[in-house]
C-alpha cells in the first residue's frame, strides 16, 4: 500500500484566520487531520494578577479588554459579581439599560462572528462587510452612551456611569428597523448557498453528550442540540421579564452553529424591543446613589455568570475585607469552548480546521487572559 508519512503543519500564530495569536500544531496525513494540539499563551498578560493588585473599581476598565468584542457583557458579569459580593442592589432602570447593552453586543458579536466564519471559507469579505456595517451602527450607540466604541467601561457597582443620552432611543429605534432586513438578507445570501452547504454540512460535528462533557457553552452547546442558556436556566438581572426563544441545532455541525447564531440575533432584537417597552422613566435613576464606588466588601466569595455572546462568562471573587480582591478568576467561554477543538477537527480536511475554528468563534483576549 502506498506508504504515507505524516507531516507536521503549523497553523498560526501569525495566520489570516486564527482570530488573534493562536497556534495549532496539526499533524496531517496527506489531506486529513490526524491530530491537533492548540497552543495558547501568546496574548497572556496575567489579567488575574493585575486584578489582584487593583481595587475593585479599577478593574472595571480591565474587564473591557477580556473579550474585546463584548466589553459591555464583561462589565456586566464583573459588576454583578461585585454587587453580589458587596450586597449592592441595582435600580430598575439600570438593570434594563444593562440588558439593553448586553443584547446589543450579542447582535454585534454574532454579526461579525458569522462574517468572520464565512470569510474563513473564502467569501471575499462581503458578508463580513455587511456585518461590520451593522456593528458600526451599534458601536456608535455605545459611543453615545458610554463614551467609547470598544472599551466602554460603562457599568459601575449599582448601575451605569451615565444615563442614556436623549438621542440614544430614537437612533436605537431606527436601528431596530434595519436589523430584521439585515438578518433576512444575510440568510438570503448564505442560507441555501450550495458552496456554503458543502463547506459546512457535516463538518466539525459535536454530538450533544460529548458537547456537555466538554463543558462548552453558548452557541456551540446550543448548536449541538442542548437548549442550555444561562438567561433561561438561571435568569439573572431582569431577564425573567422578557419572553424569547432558545434556538437549538440538530446535528451539531458548522451549519447548525451558523444558523443558531443567526436565529439568536433575531431573539436579541425581540428582547431589545421588549426592553424599550418596559424601560422605566429616568426618575428611576441610572445608578444606586448609596452605592460607594470604592467598595470594601466583607470577607467571603461570590460567583456571578452571564450568557455572554460566546458562552457562559463567570467571575469568581474572593474578598479578604480590603479594597483589593484577594482572588479574581474569570471563567472565559472562548477558553473552554476550545477544549473539543482537537476532537472536532480529527479526520477532516486541513481546509476545514479554519472553518471549524471560525464556527466556535473565539477571541484571544479572553482565551489567554
Amino acid at each position: 500500500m502506498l506508504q504515507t508519512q505524516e507531516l507536521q503543519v503549523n497553523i498560526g500564530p501569525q495566520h489570516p484566520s486564527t482570530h488573534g495569536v493562536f497556534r495549532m500544531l496539526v499533524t496531517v496525513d496527506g489531506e486529513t487531520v490526524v491530530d491537533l494540539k492548540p497552543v495558547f499563551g501568546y496574548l497572556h498578560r496575567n489579567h488575574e494578577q493585575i486584578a489582584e493588585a487593583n481595587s475593585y473599581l479599577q478593574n472595571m476598565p480591565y474587564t473591557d479588554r477580556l473579550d474585546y468584542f463584548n466589553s459591555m457583557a464583561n462589565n456586566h458579569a464583573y459588576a454583578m459579581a461585585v454587587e453580589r459580593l458587596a450586597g449592592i442592589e441595582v435600580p430598575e432602570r439600570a438593570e434594563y439599560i444593562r440588558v439593553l447593552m448586553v443584547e446589543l453586543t450579542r447582535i454585534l458579536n454574532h454579526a461579525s462572528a458569522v462574517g468572520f466564519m464565512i470569510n474563513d471559507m473564502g467569501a471575499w469579505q462581503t458578508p463580513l462587510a455587511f456585518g461590520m456595517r451593522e456593528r458600526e451602527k451599534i458601536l456608535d450607540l455605545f459611543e453615545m452612551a458610554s463614551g467609547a466604541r470598544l472599551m466602554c467601561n460603562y457599568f459601575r457597582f449599582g448601575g451605569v456611569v451615565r444615563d442614556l443620552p436623549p438621542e440614544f432611543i430614537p437612533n436605537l429605534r431606527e436601528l431596530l428597523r434595519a436589523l430584521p432586513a439585515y438578518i433576512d438578507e444575510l440568510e438570503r445570501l448564505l442560507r441555501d448557498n450550495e458552496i456554503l452547504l458543502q463547506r459546512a454540512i457535516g463538518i466539525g460535528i459535536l454530538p450533544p453528550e460529548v458537547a456537555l462533557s466538554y463543558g462548552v457553552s453558548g452557541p456551540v452547546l446550543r448548536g449541538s442540540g442542548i437548549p442550555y442558556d444561562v438567561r433561561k436556566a438561571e435568569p439573572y438581572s431582569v431577564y425573567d421579564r422578557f419572553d424569547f426563544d432558545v434556538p437549538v441545532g440538530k446535528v451539531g455541525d458548522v451549519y447548525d452553529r451558523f444558523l443558531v447564531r443567526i436565529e439568536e440575533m433575531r431573539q436579541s432584537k425581540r428582547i431589545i424591543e421588549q426592553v424599550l417597552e418596559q424601560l422605566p422613566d429616568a426618575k428611576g435613576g441610572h445608578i444606586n446613589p448609596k452605592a460607594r464606588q470604592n467598595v470594601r466588601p466583607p470577607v467571603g466569595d461570590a460567583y456571578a455568570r452571564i450568557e455572554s455572546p460566546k458562552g457562559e462568562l463567570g467571575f469568581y471573587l474572593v474578598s479578604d475585607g480590603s479594597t483589593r480582591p484577594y482572588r479574581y478568576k474569570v471563567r472565559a467561554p472562548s477558553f473552554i469552548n476550545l477544549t473539543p477543538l482537537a476532537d472536532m477537527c480529527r479526520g477532516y480536511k486541513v481546509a476545514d480546521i479554519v472553518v471549524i475554528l471560525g464556527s466556535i468563534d473565539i477571541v484571544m483576549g479572553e482565551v489567554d487572559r
Partner: protein
Amino acid sequence: MTASPFEIEIPRGRVIEVQRDDTRVRRGGGLLRGMAVVWKHWKESFKLNRSYSQIHGTFTIEYPEERPRIPEAYRNMPILLYDDETGHELCTSCFQCERICPPQVIHMTQAKDPATGKPVPAVAEFIIEYDACMSCGFCAEVCPFDAIKMDHEFELSTDDHTQLTVHKEQLLRPISYYAKIAPTMWAEVRESALKKLQGNIRRRPDVIGLAPQLTEKIAARRAELAAQAAQAAAAAPVAPAAAPAPAEGRKLTPEEKAAKLAAIRAAKAAQAGESATPAEAAPATPSPTPAGEAAPPADKAAKLAAIRAANAAKKAAAGEAPATPPAAPDASAAETTPSAAPPSDKAARLAAIRAANAAKKAAAGEAPATPPATPAGGTAADAPADAPPAAPPSDKAARLAAIRAANAAKKQQSGDGS
C-alpha cells in the same frame, strides 16, 4: 439524531429547532439568490447611506475631508481646565485622580506658597503619560473640582515619544472650550465647579495657580493696574476702571463695581500711609488681583491686617452669608484667612483664644515678622477669623482690636447658639 437527552422546559419561551432542510436537492438556486443580494447592494451603493435604518448604500466616511460626528460623552485623553475669566486652574492637586488611575499614569506635585512654604490648593507640576493612559474616564469621574475632563481630540499621533509625557502646559484648556464640546455635561457641574474655584482662588497667593500661559499676561496686567492706580491715586478718587479681571470692556456686575471701588479705596489708604485708623477698609474684591499696591512695607501690611481683622469680626457678628467672603487682598506678607462662614461655636472659642494670646504677644511688643501660621488653608474648612496680632502699633489700639474681636466672637457664638 438522538432526542435531546434532557427534557428542558424554558420559562417564557420555546425551544426552536433551526430548519436545516439539508436533504432537499439544491440546483444552484441558492447561488443565484446570493448573487441577487450582492447585485442589489451594487446597484444601491451609488447612494450615500448615513441613516441607521438603511442597510444599502455606501456608508464609508471619507475621513480627513468628512469628519464622523463625535457624541458629547466621547472620551479620549484627559485635559485640565482653567477659567478663562480669571485665568485660574480649577485643579487643586487633591491627588484623587492620581489615586484612582488604574494604570497610574497621572503624576502631580502640589504648589507651595513661595513665601511661607506652605502647600497651596494649586498644582505645580501635572504630568499625564498619554501613551499609557487608556482613557477610562475614572479621573474625570472622581475629581471633586471638575478640574480634569475627557477631551474629544483623537488625532494625537506623534513620532516623538517624549511628547507623549504631557505636561501641564499642554494639558490646559479653557472652560469655554470644554463647554463647547460637552455643553450639557458642563452645564450640570458648572455652578459647583466655579464656586469651588472661587474658594480656591482666595487661598492662592499671587500668581500661584494661574494657568502658565496666562501668568505673564496677568502679571503684566497687574503691574499695569498698579501703575495706573498709583498714578491716578492723586487724581479724583474714582480711579479709572481698574477692572480686576483681565477681560476688558466687560459690563461690570454690581459685585464687581463694589470690588473696583474697594480696590481704589484700599490703594488710596495704603498709598497715603496714614496711621492705622480703623478706617472702613472695604472688603477686598472677590477677584484675586490684589488691590493694586505693590509689595507694601511690613507696617502698612500690618495696619491693613488690623483693619481687616476688626472688620472681619464685625462681619462675623453680622452673620453675613458666606457667598461673598470678605477676602482680604492677599497682601504678599501677611497671610490671613478671613472667616467666610459664620464661625461655628468651636471656631468661636478658637477665635477667642487666639485673640487673647494675640493681645498678649502685642503687649510683649514682639515684632512678629511673620504672624503665627494660621491653620493651613489646605483643607477648604474655613478657619474662623482670627485676629492677627497687630504689629507694634500703639499696643493700646491693638489690645482694643483684640478685645473687640474676642467679645464679638462671643456674641456671635451666643447669637447662633440658638
